């Protein structure tokens, strides 16, 4: 079973929920936590874990070989991303714009643009005392998160069977990286805070999940601040709110030090229990 934790707005508690829920679930179940926020992976900062395996991840980009090139310009013409340009007697490749579609390479009449591997990130597989943790991190300057997210999910699929509960800590926003991180999930938890920003971005996230035809539920974090708009909206639209994590400076302090909450703050444990039973009900149904 795959559960993605997403949010729309950044900083609403995705990582807090992902790490604490994983630790809580792992007391009784087989769990793997996967940090798919490859631009800013944070889950690992909250876990005591030993490195089990790591590998570099690559994307394929064309590299110009001038020997046989006739400078016909076909490569430039077929590239929809303006990643290959002919400038005077040179063919220039802009790797950060390349989507690795292979068109320029395979359609080159003289095979002058062979595809070569370029490192885009690192995948690391850790083991905590009772669950597995996988994170991928994008090389700084690399613009596209999607290929790395995709390869990370492939790794997870190859290493863990269906009965393992997989928690995906997803990137913020509603654009392509979020789609990639959530589109294979069986269930999505959207975590928000009850403020105007949280509410606005939650509505965008809900729209996204409806577009993907995903089943989802809401967790309200920092409950007690802001106003009732999120709560009322969910009730009016029959969207389940499965937990409310209180606004508590003690939680913020523990978070700041990189500590987990599930074994320290009783109210958090109660809320995790409620999320857990909701998830297990869905797991039964699948």
């Amino acid at each position, binding site marked *: 079973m795959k559960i993605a934790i997403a949010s*729309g*707005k*950044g*900083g*609403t508690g995705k*990582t807090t929920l992902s790490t604490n829920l994983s630790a809580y679930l792992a007391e009784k179940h087989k769990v793997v936590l996967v940090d798919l*926020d490859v*631009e*800013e992976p*944070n889950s690992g*900062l*909250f876990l005591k874990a030993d490195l089990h395996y790591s590998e570099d991840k690559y994307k394929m980009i064309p590299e110009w070989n001038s020997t046989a090139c006739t400078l016909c310009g076909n490569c430039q013409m*077929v590239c*929809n*991303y303006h990643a290959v340009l002919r400038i005077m007697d040179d063919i220039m490749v802009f790797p*950060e714009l390349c*989507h*690795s*579609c*292979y*068109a320029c390479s*395979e*359609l080159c009449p003289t095979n002058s643009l062979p595809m070569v591997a370029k490192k885009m990130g690192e995948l690391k597989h850790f083991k905590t005392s009772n669950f597995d943790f996988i994170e991928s991190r*994008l090389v*700084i*300057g*690399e*613009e*596209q*998160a999607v290929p790395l997210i995709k390869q990370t999910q492939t790794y997870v699929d190859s290493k863990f069977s269906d009965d393992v509960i997989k928690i995906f800590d997803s*990137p*913020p*926003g*509603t*654009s*392509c*990286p*979020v*789609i990639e991180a959530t*589109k294979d999930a069986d269930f999505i938890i959207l975590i928000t805070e009850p*403020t*105007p*920003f949280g509410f*606005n*971005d939650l509505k*965008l996230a809900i*729209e*996204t999940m409806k*577009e*993907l035809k995903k089943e989802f539920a809401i967790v309200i974090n920092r409950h007690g*601040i*802001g*106003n009732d708009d999120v709560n009322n909206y969910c009730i009016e639209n029959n969207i389940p709110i499965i937990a409310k994590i209180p606004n508590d*400076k003690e939680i*913020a*302090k523990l*978070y*700041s*030090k*990189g500590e987990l909450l599930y074994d320290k703050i009783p109210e958090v444990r109660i809320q995790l229990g409620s999320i857990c039973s909701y998830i297990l009900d869905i797991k039964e149904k699948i």
Partner: protein
Amino acid sequence: MKEIVVISGKGGTGKTSIATSFAVLGANDIVIADCDVDAADMHILLQPKNSISEDFISGELALIDQDACTQCGKCFDVCRFDAIDVNNGIHIVDELSCEGCGYCARVCPVEAITNIPQNIGQWHIAETRFNQPFVHAKLGIGADNSGKLVAHVKNKAKEVAKELNKSFIIVDGSPGVGCPVVSSLSGAHFVVLVTEPTVSGLHDLKRVYELVKKFHIKAGCIINKADLNKQKAEEILEFMKEEEIVHLANIPYDETFTEAMTDCKAIVEIEDSEVKHLIIDAWNKVKEINK
């Protein structure tokens, strides 16, 4: 004209609250650009009026004409994005996976595939409730090309700033280090990093600053909720010193932040708050550096 970009790496550190406050303080000498196009929030506080909106067309998706298609499978063979689904021998495009490279259309022997330009969102030019020019946008759900929409919003803001002879453009950026952030940094004059003294705040600050350095842009930093963890705040100050990042302000953990947002106001509109004066000082430093 100077372009000031507010980013953070980590989400939820107070970027938009700070950027909106700078916008209010900038009064009639600025143009505002909300470049967090996939979760834009500035409009909530700035309540734009007289808005003119336009669709933003960028990128393409493949479409297979089933009447012309011979189901030969060439498109399936060349697609690197697993975007051609085959159902009972019928080839169709999975729109969520298609990245619009156009390779399939080029190899289709019967020209059954067309590339359809995509409407990926809307951008708006408006006036804030303080009568300042305000450019913002909304990316379509799950859309690609957020970097291009960011570039478009920034270019429009630049045009307006030049035309009206304004001194500053305030840009509210996205979290992360990916394409929208890269796009918001391109051409910027100064970066305001908003962080918090948490393990993740510092971790993400370091990553996003590595990106800023690639652009050779001078940066300043605001530590929000600075008293939450004094040791982490010290570590951030040390990092700033090493990297010669200008310290703009330490803002204490203060519920005024959320209260102002709940009232749809910028923090600097809340009278007699300590936070207000700290942000005014920070803005004055930014102005001084970018004279």
